[in-house]
C-alpha cells in the first residue's frame, strides 16, 4: 500500500517536471523569422573579472541587437574535453551560431567541424583557433605583451631582473603574449627573467596569483628583482607587496579597474609606477555582433597580418601613471559608475558593440 502510494507520488512529480520543462521550451521558441539562437561557451576563468565582463557584454549585445531570441551561456571551469562536450551540447540544442572563448587552439576543431556540417556559424573570441571555418576576434596579444615589456625594460634602463607572471598555460592568448614578451626581450640583453625564461603560470586565477607573489615575497626573492610583468593578475600583486611593507618595483598590468585605481592613488600606494595595457573584455559582445553579421551574410573586414585566416584583430594601447597627460587618460577610463573593480575598464569596442555600460553591468541577456 505504502509502496503503491510512493510510486504514484513519484509519477506525479515526474509528470509535473515534464510539464514545467515543456512550458520552458515553448517560451524560448523564436518569435519571428529574423531572430537567431546563439550559444556561448566559456571554458575557464569563472570568477575572473575579464571572463565575467566578457560573458556579460555578450549578453548585453545579444539583448540590444534585437535579433537574438535566445542566448544559451555555458560558463564553467573545465578542460578542453569538457568544452568539446559543451560545444556539442550547443550543436544539439540547434543554435544558429556559437561564440566561444577557446581552451585550446586545436583541441576544439572536431566539434567546430561538426558545427560547420550542421550549418552553424562559429566565432572564437579572446584567442584564435586553427579551424579554418571559424572566425576569430581577439585583442592583438603579441602586441599587448610587447607594449608592456618595452615600457618595463625601458623603465629599468635596459638592465635588471624581471619576475615574469604569465596567464593560463596553453591558452592561445598566453602563448601569443609569450611570443611578444620574448620579441622585446631579445633587444634587451641585460634584462634577466626569473624564475626562468618561461615564467610562472597564474592560470589567470586571482588566488593562484596571490599565492605566487606571497611565496615570492616570503622567500626574499622579491628583494632581488627590479620589475614585474603580469598577464593581468596585477592588483593582487600590488596589494601583496604593500601588505609585505616592501617598496614597489615598476609593474605591468592590464586596464583592470582595481589596478588603474592603484596607479592613480599616490597616497595609498606611494611610489607605485606602472602601466596598464588595454585588453578589452568586450570581445564577448563584439563576438555576438560578428556572429550576427555572419548569419545575415554581411561582409566582415579581416586582418591579413594575423596568423589565421578570418581574423579580426583589436589593437591594444598602453598608458602609464608617470605624466599628467597619461594620468588624465587613465582617469578618463574610470568614467563608468558601478563597474566591478576587477573588470577591465574598456567596456565597449567602437564599431562592434552598441549596448550602454549600464546594460553590460546589468548582465541580462534576451529571454531572461
Amino acid at each position: 500500500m505504502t509502496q503503491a502510494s510512493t510510486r504514484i507520488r513519484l509519477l506525479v512529480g515526474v509528470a509535473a517536471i515534464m510539464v514545467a520543462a515543456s512550458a520552458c521550451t515553448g517560451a524560448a521558441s523564436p518569435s519571428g523569422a529574423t531572430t537567431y539562437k546563439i550559444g556561448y561557451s566559456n571554458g575557464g576563468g569563472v570568477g575572473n573579472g575579464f571572463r565575467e565582463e566578457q560573458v556579460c557584454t555578450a549578453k548585453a549585445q545579444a539583448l540590444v541587437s534585437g535579433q537574438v531570441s535566445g542566448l544559451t551561456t555555458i560558463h564553467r571551469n573545465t578542460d578542453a574535453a569538457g568544452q568539446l562536450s559543451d560545444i556539442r551540447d550547443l550543436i544539439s540544442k540547434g543554435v544558429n551560431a556559437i561564440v566561444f572563448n577557446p581552451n585550446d587552439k586545436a583541441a576544439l576543431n572536431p566539434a567546430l567541424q561538426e558545427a560547420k556540417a550542421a550549418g552553424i556559424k562559429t566565432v572564437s573570441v579572446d584567442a584564435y583557433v586553427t579551424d579554418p571555418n571559424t572566425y576569430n576576434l581577439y585583442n592583438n596579444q603579441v602586441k599587448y605583451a610587447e607594449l608592456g615589456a618595452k615600457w618595463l625594460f625601458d623603465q629599468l634602463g635596459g638592465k635588471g631582473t624581471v619576475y615574469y607572471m604569465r596567464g593560463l598555460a596553453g591558452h592561445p592568448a598566453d602563448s601569443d603574449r609569450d611570443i611578444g614578451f620574448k620579441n622585446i626581450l631579445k633587444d634587451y640583453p641585460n634584462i634577466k627573467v626569473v624564475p626562468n625564461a618561461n615564467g610562472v603560470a597564474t592560470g589567470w586565477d586571482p588566488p593562484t596569483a596571490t599565492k605566487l607573489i606571497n611565496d615570492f615575497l616570503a622567500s626574499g626573492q622579491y628583494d632581488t628583482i627590479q620589475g614585474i610583468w603580469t598577464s593581468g593578475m596585477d592588483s593582487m600583486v600590488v596589494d601583496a607587496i604593500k601588505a609585505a611593507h616592501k617598496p614597489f618595483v615598476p609593474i605591468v598590468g592590464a586596464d583592470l579597474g582595481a589596478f588603474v585605481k592603484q596607479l592613480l592613488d599616490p597616497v595609498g600606494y606611494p611610489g607605485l609606477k606602472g602601466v596598464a595595457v588595454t585588453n578589452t573584455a568586450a570581445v564577448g559582445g563584439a563576438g555576438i555582433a560578428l556572429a550576427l553579421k555572419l548569419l545575415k551574410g554581411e561582409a566582415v573586414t579581416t586582418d591579413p597580418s594575423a596568423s589565421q585566416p578570418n581574423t579580426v584583430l583589436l589593437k591594444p594601447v598602453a598608458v602609464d601613471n608617470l605624466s599628467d597627460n597619461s594620468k588624465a587618460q587613465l582617469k578618463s577610463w574610470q568614467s563608468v559608475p558601478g563597474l566591478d573593480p576587477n573588470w577591465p575598464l574598456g567596456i565597449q569596442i567602437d564599431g562592434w558593440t552598441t549596448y550602454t555600460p549600464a546594460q553590460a553591468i546589468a548582465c541580462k541577456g534576451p529571454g531572461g
Partner: protein
Amino acid sequence: MSALSGTVDTARARPADALAAWARRNAWDLGLVGFLVGLLVFTKLIQPSYGVPGVQGLAISVLPLALAAVAQAIVVLSGGIDLSLGSMMALVNVVAATQMQGQSEEFGVAVVLGALLLGLALGAVNGSLIVLTRVPDIVVTLAMSFVWAGFALLVLPTPGGGSAKWLPELVTGSLGNEWIPKAAVVLIIVVALIWIPVRRSWLGLSLYAIGSNRLAAFRSGVSVGRTRILAYTLMGLFAALGGLSLTASTGIGIPVPGPYTLLSVAAVVLGGVSLAGGRGSVFGPILGVIILQLIRTDMTFLDVDTNLATVLQGLILIGVVMIGSLVQIRASRA
C-alpha cells in the same frame, strides 16, 4: 547464504523466479537503466530535435569519464580508493601525444601499447606503495596525484603534441547504423575484454573478497597484498585507456589534470558501488557517468544558469543515491 542456494535451486525449476532473482541482485543497475531511459525521454521532450548528433556527442563526452569510473570502481570494490586517477590520465595523455606527434600511423600503435604499459606501471607503483608502506590509500594516492601531475608538466609544459590519425577516427562517428556511436562500441569492447575475464577469474573473486572482508579473505587463503596491488594495476590500465581517450577526443596532450578524479568517485557512488568495498559492479558507474553527462546536457537545453546547474547536479546526485538506498532498505525488509 540462504539467498544464494535458493537462487541456484529455483534456477533449475522455474525460469521466471530465476529472472526475478537476477533482477533483485541487479536492482540498482536496473534502476539506473530505468532512470537513464526516463532521462532520455525527458531530453527528447524538452529538445524534440535531440537525435543522432546528440547521442554521438554524448558517447564521445562520456568515454573518458566512463573509463575513469571503471578504473575507480575496481579499486573501490577492492576496498581502496585512488585520488591520483586524474593526474595519471593527464600523464598518459601527454606521453601519448608527445610520442605520436609527427610519427607514422604504425608507430602510433606502438605508442598506444606503450601508454597502456605505462598505465599498468603507474597503477602498480600506487598499489605497491600502499601495501609496502602501510600508509593509508587516501594519503598515498593524494601524494601521488601531485607526483603524476608534476611528471605530466615535465613531459609537456603547455598543451600540445599530436595524435595518430586513426586514434580520433576510432572514437568519432558511427559503426554501421548511425545510432551506434563508435565511442560506445569501443567502451563496451574494452570493458568486456578486460573486466569480464578478470571478474570471472580467481582475481575477480579475491578482489571482491578483500573488499568485503579483508580478514576473512586472508583466512580463506587470499593473498591480500598481492590482490590489492593487482587491483591498482588494473586501475592503472583503465586510467591509461582514459588518458588515451582524451588524446583521441582532443587530438593533443593537456598536462593539467581534468576533473576526472572527483567525477569518478561521484560516478562510483551513483553507480551503486559501496565505498566500503566488496559490493557493486563496474556497469553501474558507467551508467552513472552517462546520467551525469546527460543531466548537464539537459541543463543546457533548459537554459539553466551554469552555476545553478552545478548545484542541481550535486543535489540530483545526493537525491538519487538517497532514494535508491531507501528503496533497497524497504525491499530488504519486505
